[in-house]
């Protein structure tokens, strides 16, 4: 077990393409850290630099107390799980797992002990003599996990390990990886572009964009207090709504409609000099209210014309336009509006966020 330290890590590919810039992060022992962001944000590059598969252009990487920038992957004491499993197609399950141990000159009975242990954890006992091509996607990914487990490495690196699986299996494997982590307590760095995976698995998550860290924090913290518009929009599904408007007196004003900003928030906004200025209001679809409650809160009522409604089962997601800006609401499925109708929504503005229009940073109003 070990903690990791990334200090001013930078990755510049030839032709001056900057992939990761000035990455600073301490990863604690036993942590399940998730790097999340849209494609091309540098999360996989960061992971590959930690693995040693990609050279670090600038900065220092420490595993434990040792600077490992120039240490080859095999000596970094890491194990990696790849998106496409990367199993050895000509070896059976047992040999796939044992390969790394054989290379490290482990004794035969020790190898057998470790592989047996891993197969028991992963429920692969009956498949040991099968070749990868005779396995299903989920089984293959389990073998790939097994290959990491038997190594008993300090750090597990996982590069979108679930994105090749179908939706149902993905949820199942997600839970299995979490169980595995709580059982083995190995420091894990997990890369994904799926915010649901990030939210559900991470002890801490790192949101990245364009090679820069946008926010680091526990999932709840990132969800409740997104640093900026990007994080607010990326974490949470469906994504947060952003409405442009002006702060006038006690109201947030958009063209024809206005909503009343709660006193405490307004006070803090005024103190920070946003009175009379254009700002961005961020409200999550789940904080949009509908039904009788709307009439009780006339101050935050807005009218929306529904364009699409998607029934999810317990909930219904309504896509609409408010003052020509896209607006999504997630309400109880008892609400039966159909596309083309108009409906009144209310906001739970206590849960709303305000963002500076220019810097896109969140304005602290608590």
């Amino acid at each position, binding site marked *: 077990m070990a903690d990791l330290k990334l200090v001013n890590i930078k990755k510049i590919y030839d032709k001056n393409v900057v992939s990761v810039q000035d990455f600073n992060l301490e990863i604690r022992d036993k942590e399940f850290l998730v790097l999340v962001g849209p494609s091309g944000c540098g999360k996989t590059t960061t992971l590959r630099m930690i693995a040693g598969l990609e050279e670090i252009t600038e900065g220092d990487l420490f595993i434990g107390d040792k600077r490992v920038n120039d240490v080859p992957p095999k000596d970094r004491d890491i194990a990696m799980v790849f998106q496409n499993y*990367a199993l*050895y197609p*000509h070896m059976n399950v047992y040999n796939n797992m044992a*390969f790394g141990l054989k290379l490290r000159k482990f004794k035969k009975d020790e190898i057998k002990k470790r592989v047996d242990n891993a197969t028991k954890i992963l429920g692969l006992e009956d498949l040991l003599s099968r070749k990868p091509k005779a396995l299903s996607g989920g089984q293959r990914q389990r073998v790939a996990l097994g*290959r990491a487990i038997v190594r008993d490495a300090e750090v597990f690196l996982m590069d979108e390990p679930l994105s090749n699986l179908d939706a149902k299996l993905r949820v199942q494997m997600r839970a299995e990886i979490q169980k595995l982590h709580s059982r083995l307590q190995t420091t894990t760095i997990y890369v994904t572009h799926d915010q649901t995976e990030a939210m559900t698995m991470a002890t801490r998550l790192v949101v990245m964009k364009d090679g820069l860290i946008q926010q680091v924090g526990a999932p709840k913290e990132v969800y409740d207090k997104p640093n900026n518009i990007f994080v607010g929009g990326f974490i949470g599904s469906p994504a947060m709504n952003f409405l442009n408007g002006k702060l006038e007196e006690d109201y947030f004003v958009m063209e024809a409609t206005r909503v009343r900003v709660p006193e405490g928030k307004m006070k803090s906004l005024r103190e920070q000099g946003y009175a009379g200025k254009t700002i961005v209001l961020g409200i999550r679809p789940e904080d949009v209210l509908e039904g009788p409650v709307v009439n009780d809160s006339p101050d935050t009522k807005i009218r929306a014309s529904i364009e699409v409604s998607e029934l999810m089962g317990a909930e219904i997601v309504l896509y609409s336009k408010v003052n020509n800006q896209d607006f999504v609401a997630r309400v109880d499925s008892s609400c039966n509006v159909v596309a083309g109708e108009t409906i009144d929504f209310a906001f739970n503005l206590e849960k709303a966020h305000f963002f500076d229009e220019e810097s896109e940073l969140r304005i602290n109003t608590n």
Partner: protein
Amino acid sequence: MKNKENTTRKINMYVLLLIGVVISLFPFYWMVVGSTLPSGKIFSVPPKLIPGNHLLENAKTLNESLDFARVMWNSLFIAIIYTVISVLLCTMAGYAFAKFQFKGKKFLFFLILCTLMIPFQVTLIPLFEIMVTLDWLNTYQAIILPSIASPFAIFLMRQNMITIPDSMLEAARIDGAGEFKIFFSIIMPTMKPALAAVSIFLFMSQWNNLLWPLITLNSKDMFTLPVALSSLIGMARIDYGQVMLGTTLSVIPILIFFLIFQKNFIAGILGGSVKG
């Protein structure tokens, strides 16, 4: 009605295929028949299609004209050594071109492909002069070494290896395998079909090679099969019976080689062109 149409179509197809089979197999059959006939009867009109009883006589004269066992050994030795070394070299080169990044990679690969377009006859004289300078005339290495790096084999291996996912190699690297270990324990086994195809190709090209051995080999005990057989034709009276027998015998090893690798050979050709 439709059924009938299908049947006629099938019959037509089989007839066409049958004609193709007869056309391609007849020369072989005639060669085998010819090896059992006395020279004079091979060209008789109408041609003899039933095996005769002159096989032993032909064998006797063949063995008198050349040391057949020695010639066979020369051919086998050269072809096998050549195939083993060449497959290894070309696979390594193909691997480098497919999976490693280095300066001038594209240009080098382009150069290698360019050499495919140069006919061997063009390089014949300079190559011969090199052999004279090295004093390698009439040696095995003079036959084996000049064509040891086959551009076609390199090309074929590279095309096949491009389909190997990088992550597999990275997984092996993290597992602790060095580059040679990766090559021999991961790359070679996954490339079996392609290796079989390349082996057959290289073995055949060396087995049938006539021009270059004909020029570099000048003593009878070094002759390969094609050279030895062609030397029979050079004599005043051509005994076609023994030539046919020699040719028939020379086909046998390649037939065995092909039958062993046949399954892989076909898989390899398809595997290279259509990525499943």
